[in-house]
């Protein structure tokens, strides 16, 4: 439709100019230039084909209506042959030049966009590299003083071994230091996931080993209350990044610990569920009320939720039958293929 419109406009323009020229008895030279201007605009507007066609139609009309003898295609005066050829030649040249200018402008625009896009990509790449190095630096700068603090705390423990009144204080410092360390670990892991700098690296991980690492990470929780661990005999390994699994479970156990009364038991359980592994942390605390928000429930649960999702799993928190809460994480199960057997 659009192409048809171009042809129609071209024909209309030439006819209108010709009619105007005939009506006003314009002199041939002025008419030639008028046609030329029309050709310039038509080719700039509609491109090569219309430009060339307009040149030819204009040449024909010029000859037929304005060059003597009028109303024939015959040209008598050799000077008019020169004028006609000059007209055809210049209108074709003009078409070509206009089109060349047009495509140069388009090329320049394309280059400008390309340069801008490259600059944008480069900026993104730089900010990505910046993020990575910032995270590395942050991780190093936070864990270095924390390591020094925890060594110094151990030193204090050794030096105050004979002073029971100090032992409690030192143990509390040690406990808070490791809590701070876990929070920093959590935040760095979240930042890494967010920045796309850390892709989980799953491998078959026995649930018993996840629970064992949790016990090593939270010695005070395990020594201050009964913690029952059960792993179903037919429970497969979870296919999960071991660090993420540990972080998820440490957050859930810490949360259950804070919610529970002194001495109240916590249970850790692992069981198969279809092609998944279900890990649960069960407590006898107050349970959850449905209107509680992140601020009330703590950052730990939100972190557990994000990390479970990043591990291709899911997380939910429910009230437990008989009081308390159950935090449930479902992770993909590992499928172990043992080819051949040495026995």
């Amino acid at each position, binding site marked *: 439709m659009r192409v048809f419109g171009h042809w129609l406009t071209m024909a209309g323009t030439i006819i209108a100019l010709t009619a105007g020229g005939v009506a006003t008895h314009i002199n041939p030279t002025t008419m030639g230039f008028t046609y030329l201007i029309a050709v310039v605009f038509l080719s700039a507007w509609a491109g090569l084909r219309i430009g060339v066609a307009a040149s030819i139609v204009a040449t024909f009309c010029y000859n037929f209506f304005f060059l003597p003898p009028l109303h024939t295609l015959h040209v008598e005066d050799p000077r008019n042959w020169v004028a006609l050829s000059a007209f055809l030649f210049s209108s074709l040249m003009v078409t070509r030049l206009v089109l060349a200018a047009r495509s140069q402008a388009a090329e320049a625009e394309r280059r400008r966009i390309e340069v801008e896009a490259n600059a944008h990509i480069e900026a993104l790449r730089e900010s990505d590299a910046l993020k990575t190095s910032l995270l590395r630096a942050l991780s*190093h700068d936070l864990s270095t003083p924390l390591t020094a603090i925890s060594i110094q705390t151990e030193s204090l423990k050794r030096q105050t071994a004979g002073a029971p009144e100090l032992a409690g204080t030192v143990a509390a410092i040690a406990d808070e230091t490791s809590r701070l360390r876990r929070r920093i670990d959590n935040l760095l892991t979240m930042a890494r996931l967010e920045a796309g700098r850390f892709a989980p690296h799953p491998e078959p991980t026995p649930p018993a080993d996840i629970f064992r690492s949790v016990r090593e990470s939270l010695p005070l929780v395990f020594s201050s209350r009964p913690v029952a661990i059960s792993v179903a005999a037919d429970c497969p390994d979870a296919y999960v990044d071991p660090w993420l699994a540990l972080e998820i479970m440490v957050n859930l156990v810490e949360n259950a610990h804070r919610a529970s009364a002194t001495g109240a038991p916590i249970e850790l359980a692992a069981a198969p569920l279809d092609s998944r592994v279900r890990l649960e942390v069960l407590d006898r605390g107050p349970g959850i009320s449905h209107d509680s928000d992140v601020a009330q429930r703590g950052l730990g649960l939100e972190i557990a939720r994000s990390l479970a999702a990043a591990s291709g799993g899911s997380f939910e928190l429910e009230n437990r039958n008989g009081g308390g809460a159950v935090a449930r994480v479902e992770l993909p199960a590992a499928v172990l293929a043992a080819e051949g057997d040495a026995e």
Partner: protein
Amino acid sequence: MNERAILVVDDDPGIRDSLSRELRAAGYATTIAADGREGLSAFRTQAPDLLLTDLAMPVSDGFELISAIRGFCRTPVIVLSVRGSDADKIRALDLGADDFVTKPFSLPELLARVRAQLRRSTSASPTVLEFDDLTVDLERRRVTQGSREVKLTRTEFSLLELLATHAGKPVFMEQIIARVWDSAAWTTHDTVRVHMSALRRKLEPDPSSPRYIVTEPWVGYRFIAEPTS
């Protein structure tokens, strides 16, 4: 009294000095260095029994130090790695480091790793290994737990033998495949995992809370010589 010498290489004076003080309190002689280059020259002059080194350091890093040292001796090396740099840790192990702790590590854990590494060079290889109530008789290839004999298949015993003779130290998947399966082409990590889980079921008094064998993420397994809790 223990008078083994340990070289501590870390660019952070807070860690370097406190670590060195606690190691001395634990009965070791210590030398400190602030980077890989200083570490290498201290290593050459002091000839320590064990090297504890950080990885990221200015001038010359831990990787350079480890590969330089592995060029001329087998002294145990424990790497102090940072959480989230697991690729660095694996690279250090590939270069010849024997073990690692992740910063911020706990001191008792580090001391246990140090003891495990130093034990290697002192003990003449015994034929009977004892851990709590578990006894592994390497010559008669028998395992007893208390008064009960644990029946293991040939593969399971070889796995246990490899881990128990390296008690306290990480044993890599590749090492296990090479030693137990003679690098047979069909042996995959999954093969190892299946046999290992069978061994653990027979060996662990409570499979829900492993006492002896634990997985070491991305590395392999570790036999726990000293119970931590």
